[in-house]
């Protein structure tokens, strides 16, 4: 049972400037919700004011399905309780913005995709904190998907001259990996497809492929698997053509300048979730089985891919 979903669409709408009265109301509704959020935030800040007025700021990216507000609110509440200080979630649609927020020290922790992690690690801006466990293991892979009506395609290389949907220029599964694969096959990733575009999210890759906007797309297996449970109607409209080898799961990173104590506290809070009934419940809703201490070696494959592509 995953009480995810249903908020994704409104997030899409929110991104769009209103074109009619209805959107005007939706916008107002969203604004109102933001104000409520802020009120809750301020109220909870006040509770913790005596101990530590500085809130912990936690960045969220499309590496997870990052727009389930209710789940995230509950999780934030949980973390506040465990850390005994205010926590703020900062959601961004593009990895670039999250990377910039870490660089600008505007967030302390972030759950990022593997590519941004390796980038941040290499730039010595952040370090690995924990790796989530999906079905008990710290791995994920990349899926190449096409519309379910396309029964021909068997590999990425058959997609020459097609329209391809990328997730984010800093996404491993949704950008780096397919380009790497093309490059390894001797193709020019910049010319191989007739047209490419970014959807700024993994779920939207599924949307774009299902709707026929793109002929194919590549995305995070965790997102697709989760969607296949909470929105099977959507994933049924797509077909997985290929699955990549496994790589380390998109990790939670800590900004380098975050104090050891804060870092340890956060790590402890996340690692302890699986052993805590409330935490376990949240994990279940996140479709994860827990968090494990990070192991940088898990991401070597990604780093290799990055370096190869960076040489291009």
């Amino acid at each position: 049972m995953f009480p995810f979903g249903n908020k994704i669409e409104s997030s899409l709408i929110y991104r769009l400037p209103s074109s009619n009265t209805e959107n005007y109301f939706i916008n107002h509704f969203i604004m109102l919700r933001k104000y409520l959020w802020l009120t809750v935030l301020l109220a909870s800040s006040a509770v913790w004011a005596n101990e530590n007025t500085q809130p912990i700021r936690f960045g969220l990216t499309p590496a997870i399905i990052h727009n389930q507000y209710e789940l995230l609110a509950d999780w934030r509440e949980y973390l506040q309780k465990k850390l005994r200080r205010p926590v703020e979630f900062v959601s961004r649609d593009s990895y670039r913005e999250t990377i910039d927020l870490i660089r600008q020290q505007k967030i302390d922790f972030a759950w990022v995709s593997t590519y941004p992690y390796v980038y941040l690690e290499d730039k010595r801006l952040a370090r690995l904190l924990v790796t989530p466990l999906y079905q008990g293991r710290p791995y994920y892979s990349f899926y190449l998907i096409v519309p379910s009506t396309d029964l021909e395609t068997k590999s990425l290389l058959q997609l020459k001259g097609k329209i391809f949907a990328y997730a984010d220029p800093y996404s491993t599964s949704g950008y780096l990996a397919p380009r790497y694969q093309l490059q390894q096959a001797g193709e020019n990733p910049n010319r191989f497809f007739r047209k490419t575009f970014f959807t700024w999210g993994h779920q939207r890759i599924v949307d774009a492929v299902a709707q026929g906007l793109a002929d194919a797309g590549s995305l995070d297996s965790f997102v697709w698997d989760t969607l296949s449970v909470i929105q099977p109607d959507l994933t049924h409209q797509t077909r997985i053509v290929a699955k990549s080898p496994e790589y380390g799961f998109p990790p939670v990173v800590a900004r380098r300048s975050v104090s050891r104590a804060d870092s340890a506290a956060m790590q402890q809070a996340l690692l302890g979730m699986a052993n805590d009934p409330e935490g376990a419940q949240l994990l279940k809703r996140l479709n994860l089985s827990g968090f494990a201490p990070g192991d940088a070696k898990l991401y070597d494959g990604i780093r290799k891919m990055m370096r190869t592509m960076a040489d291009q």
Partner: protein
Amino acid sequence: MKFILDLSYRYKLPLWGGMLIIITALAVSGTLISHAYDELKEDLLHDSETMGYSLKTNLFPAMLHDDVWRAYEIISVPINRPIEGSNPVKAEHILVIDNELRVFVAAHPKSAPMLTEMRHLNPEFAVLADRIMQMDGRSSQEINLPESKYYYYVTPISSENLHLGTLIIAHPKNIFLPRFVQLARHGLEVGAIILAILLPFNWYWGRRMALPLVQITERMGDISKKWPSELNSDLFVYRDEIGQLFVAYTQMLRDLKDKEEFEKQMVQSERLAALGQLAAGIAHEINNPLSGMLTAIDTLKSYSDLDPRTMKTIDLIERGLTQIKETVGALLVEAKIKSRHLAPQDIEDVLTLVTPMARKKALHIGWHNSLDEAVPLPATLVRQILINLLLNAVQATEQQGEVTFDIGIADSQLQFSVANDGRMLSDEQIAHLFEPFSPMSEGSHGLGLWVTYQIVHQLGGRVSVKREPNDLMHFTVSIPLGGVA
């Protein structure tokens, strides 16, 4: 059609009225519905214009940055909007076309894949492409292709002088159907209520209007066969044309009756005049030989040598001849008798004469004598008329019946009437009442009324008999003063 036109007004009037009401209701609701349709279309155009403007404003930066996904999201919103409330207007398709007239993005990418030449999508889009080529790239335009199932609204995506492409919004033409059905249903409901109120009223009114006409028509149709019955004047009390028709009909009926009555009297008086002439002629012809015969018998009787048997026979003949003379004399009414003027006392004398007979039958006699001086009419003749009529009335009245008598002067005429209850006379009997030897006529030889008539006639007056509704036989006599006598 003729069948309908031949129908009675009883049905035709309500039917026409009902039809007019229905046609009016249909015309009014039809007008309202078509007006609503125009408004809906106007709204659609307005919506398209607003939507086109706001979409293009958002699409411009997306196209500028080649952000397909963002463009897709922008145009998907109006498409995926759930239909709410009574506004069914929702675009079915939205496309963004680039400057090469290729699909930049479509809300339904499967039907219009990205980068497809717009002209290759379908023939309709080929026409649209031509129209877009002709546009100035600044102003929006509604494109209504007659054969198409869609209204197209085309908005250039441009800012200042940079033109990036064209936004095409397609609304299905049948978009109004649900709304239209709803409107039509409302219209029909209201129409049905109006009809439910008006039709029974119309039916009643139509019947009310038609019924007098129908009755008059029925009576007019029957007039040649039988005497029509009177109209019930309560049936229509208003003074409009139908009311006037009622009055005219009643008047016509009355005139017809008078005319018939007059004709009857004419026939009767002509017949009686002919009879009078005949009787007078015969009487003269009989009287001459009769006088001779009587003189001869008288002469014969003066000879006394006749045997008793012959004498007896001669007497028998003489009595017979005398009877003939009397009868003929009675038939030959001679009004030219010199007489004194009629005095009020003469009338009272007649009463005195009649009273003993009336008393025998215990009759009640109503007596109104308004004569107060002598009038220039022969007293003997008038007395004879009075006696004849009164005796006749007394004879015809049952025991303890009533006889009324009224006399006076009016319009330079002596007018009197005798009425009695009791035996009523039929029309047939009345028609022949004044003829000689009428079985209804009392007095000598059934000549009483004949004599009366002859006298009145010779005096230049008129006598008439009427059967009154209240079971009275009414004899009326009017004689001009100082008349022919």
